[in-house]
């Protein structure tokens, strides 16, 4: 497959953008979405390499990642609702109970 590097670079860019989002955004839901973005960047890597190597295992792996992402979305969003109930906010700067 001739265009493998293109896919991988796009995947790397998406991953880096996701990372920046996780590190810089305050809104917990946006952070959550950035994590999804990073997971998808990885998925793209998996599938393109799977296609290149001619082996299906990478794609199976992507299915599992999707499952985990789905579970994570359910639990994470529930957590955010619970947090919002307590603090009237989902700003990560308000998650400060560990602060001394």
């Amino acid at each position, binding site marked *: 497959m001739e*265009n493998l590097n*293109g*896919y991988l*670079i*796009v995947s*790397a*860019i*998406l*991953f*880096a*953008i*996701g*990372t*920046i989002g996780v*590190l*810089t*955004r*305050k*809104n917990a*839901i*946006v952070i*959550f*979405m*950035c994590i*999804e*973005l990073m997971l*998808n960047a990885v*998925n*793209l890597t998996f*599938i*393109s*390499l*799977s*296609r*290149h*190597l*001619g*082996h*299906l*295992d990478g*794609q*199976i792996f992507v*299915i*599992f990642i*999707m*499952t985990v*992402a*789905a*579970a994570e*979305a*359910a*639990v994470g*969003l*529930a957590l*955010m*609702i*619970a947090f919002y*109930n*307590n603090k009237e906010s*989902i700003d990560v700067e308000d998650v400060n109970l560990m602060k001394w």
Partner: protein
Amino acid sequence: METLFFVIISLVAIISAILVITCKNPINSALSLIMTFFCLATYYVMLDAPFMAAIQVMVYAGAIMVLIVFTIMLLNIRVNATQKHSHKVLLGSILGIFILINTVVLLFKSQVSNPVGGLTGDLIKNLGHSELIGREMFTTFLLPFEITSILLLVAIIGSVILAKKKI
């Protein structure tokens, strides 16, 4: 032709990804993310993985993103124009760029091995992608597949309890 298409899709994906992290309103971010997911689905089709493209659209763009948008609307967070929506932009960006540099350098320094499996474009066209995935999933990966169902069950119960109780 295909290269041009690839570049356009890539530009759309990257721009919408950047919009995800720059939009003030989380709804806008969510919509941009859906755009990115559609671009990724397009890639999957280009990579001869139509089944993955389908579940990408259904699970990610459909289920998960609907859930997120639903949550955003449920919580009804008002966007305060005076409040900063991001912090440590410089440090975070530098770190992100370093990650990008790391991966790209890794990409160019390393050598990808030759195909090892028997999966070819012809085979996929003849048998169909869904059948290949299904065959693999229900033979070699049967046990992990079953375990994921338990994981999902746990997630369902956990999220119900978390959202229901006042913690």
